[in-house]
């Protein structure tokens, strides 16, 4: 979609947000493509909500440009920006019923009345709340209120939909169901969704691309597989999923990868251009890329703890040099681990699995 000269849905150019002496968002530039489910992921206080609120117009950028399909909107107040927001606590108007809530945006835009009625009905059908049009928000469950908030934000036909942790107030089952529905709604509506969350699972299941943020900075942008398999730095590797972060020494470098030395044994890491032989660096190794076998030399250690997790076994191993690593083995085909708790084991690592990170 990005070729053919089409403008990006949202483009940030050197956007900064400062509150007095505190910088909430360091200089940030990236683009959100047309018709894309884009997620801002990070721990609380990383600046993801600030960034979303700047796109919506509730916060003013201290510097930089915010472009919406090529048009600079940074100076526009929220009511003149063709984007709509789903708020974390929904912010439904308590004195209006569901239909009036959904109609509000269109009424403000002076959409003709018959069309408002038709689109309210459509929006309520989309979120499966046709029978609740006359109810007050206070008469609805949390999940239903959430759907009203979605319908209200989608009904006026925004160019981009902004969602500020909309699922965080729901219970787990509902949250999981809503992830699928949200993704489906994004596909149907054909507009870009910008979704803010601190929940990496949420981000991985729904997003076309994810921006991982920390301390007012975007650390990496990529699809789920990229940020999981090829984390750009220590923070991303640690924040997305589980990992082992180990200090290793680069033995040799080559086009097919770098040989790294870990506690005397050698492994092949994913290629990386900017490392030299003899350099000490940090490697991220995912637990599921580690296999335990009966002791046979190489990297060895003692299996300290084995936890049954249903689909997986989680093993904690103490290496001979005293460091600890975790491994995951799938609970498939009724196989048993070849090593029991307290026994010695040899640790195998998939070729190319270790990712060398900047120190």
């Amino acid at each position, binding site marked *: 979609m990005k070729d053919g000269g089409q403008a990006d849905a949202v483009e940030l150019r050197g956007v900064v947000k400062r509150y007095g002496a505190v910088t909430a968002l360091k200089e940030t530039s990236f683009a959100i493509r047309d018709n894309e489910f884009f997620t801002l992921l990070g721990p609380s206080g990383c600046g993801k909500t600030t960034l979303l609120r700047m796109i919506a117009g509730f916060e003013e950028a201290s510097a930089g440009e915010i472009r919406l399909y090529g048009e600079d909107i940074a100076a526009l107040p929220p009511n003149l920006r063709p984007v709509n927001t789903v708020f974390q606590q929904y912010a439904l*108007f308590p004195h209006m019923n569901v239909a009036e809530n959904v109609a509000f945006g269109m009424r403000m835009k002076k959409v003709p009345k018959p069309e408002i009625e038709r689109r309210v009905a459509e929006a309520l059908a989309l979120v499966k709340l046709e029978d609740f049009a006359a109810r007050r928000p206070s008469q609805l469950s949390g999940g239903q209120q959430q759907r009203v908030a979605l319908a209200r934000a989608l009904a006026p036909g925004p160019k981009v939909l902004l969602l500020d942790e909309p699922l965080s107030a729901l219970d787990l089952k509902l949250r999981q169901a809503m992830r699928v529905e949200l993704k489906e709604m994004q596909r149907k509506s054909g507009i870009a969704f910008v979704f803010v969350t601190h929940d990496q699972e949420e981000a991985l299941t729904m997003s076309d691309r994810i921006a991982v943020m920390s301390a007012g900075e975007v650390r990496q942008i990529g699809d789920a597989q990229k940020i999981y398999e090829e984390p750009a730095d220590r923070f991303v590797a640690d924040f997305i999923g589980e990992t082992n972060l180990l200090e290793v020494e680069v033995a040799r470098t080559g086009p097919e990868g770098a040989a790294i030395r870990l506690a005397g044994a050698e492994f092949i890491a994913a290629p990386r251009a900017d490392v030299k032989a003899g350099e000490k660096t940090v490697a991220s190794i995912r637990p599921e890329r580690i296999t335990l076998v009966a002791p046979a030399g190489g990297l060895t250690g003692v299996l300290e703890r084995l936890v049954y997790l249903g689909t997986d076994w989680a093993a904690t191993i103490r290496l001979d040099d005293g460091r600890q690593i975790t491994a995951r083995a799938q609970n498939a085909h009724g196989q048993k681990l070849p090593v029991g708790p307290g026994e010695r084991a040899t640790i195998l690592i998939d070729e190319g699995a270790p990712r060398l990170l900047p120190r």
Partner: protein
Amino acid sequence: MAGGGAGGGGRTQSAAFAPVRLWLLLPSWAVIAIFMGLPLLIMLVYSFLTKEFRGGVIWEFSLAAYDRFVFDRGLFGDDPPVLNTTYLTIFARSLIQALVATALCLLIGFPAAFYIATRPPEQRTLWLLLITVPYWVNLLIRTVSMKFLIRENGPLNEFLMGIGLISEPLPLVNTDIAVQLGLFYSYLPFMVLPIYAAVERYDFSLSEAAADLYADRWTILREVTLPAVRPGVIAGCILVFIPSLGAFLAPDLLGGARTFMIGSLIEEQFKGAAGDWPFGAAAATILMTIVLIALLLHARAEARREV
């Protein structure tokens, strides 16, 4: 939805405690009955009695007090009844004065309350304290001070002439404007405090949601903020309107004969030797009845809105 059984259990428990609770509430009921119910009853009864000439009443049923409020029967009561507009005019003027005072308090009190409620929490207490400071001084003294402030060669006129806005002092004392000033000054905090409480509870993300949905500032205020803080606004209006309607200090001290209000009329009936107790009681009963009917109509309208 669920938990119907639990709710039923709660009711059963309440029922078991009901007799105890009734006894515990007895002192409150007694105080309310003796000090609030009884005086009203006495007022009501007196309004239907015959007047004694040096104040007090004769225990003889009579509608003369109500009759006097509405009709003029001549000196000896032998002429056919003619509508007497003197007291009705006083009553109407009081209503208008009270309505204007309420509107004025709302106009100034709403922005003030909004401003205070949107300050950082540690500043709000100070602002509220400042709003209530005048109340540490007796109302009579404050009203006299107001008279001093606005009299012909008082500070207000001196100031206005000093900056060249007027060339001659404004005759403010003994006018409706003076009474308005007195009422406004006396009852402003009653408007500010309930509105403040409502705005403080207001969820400002509703304003953001409205702005996000293309509403401009005025529309947000009118369609989202005001409906949400309505109960506070209505409470403020009632708290200002009712005492303004029955006020007698401000009209007495700041107004003149032409600005006579119903509160002063009632006061006169009980203070002087020329007083007419049943007439005063009847005027008070009429006043209270009209206020009560207005409040009941409002309560019913509110109840319908909620459904």
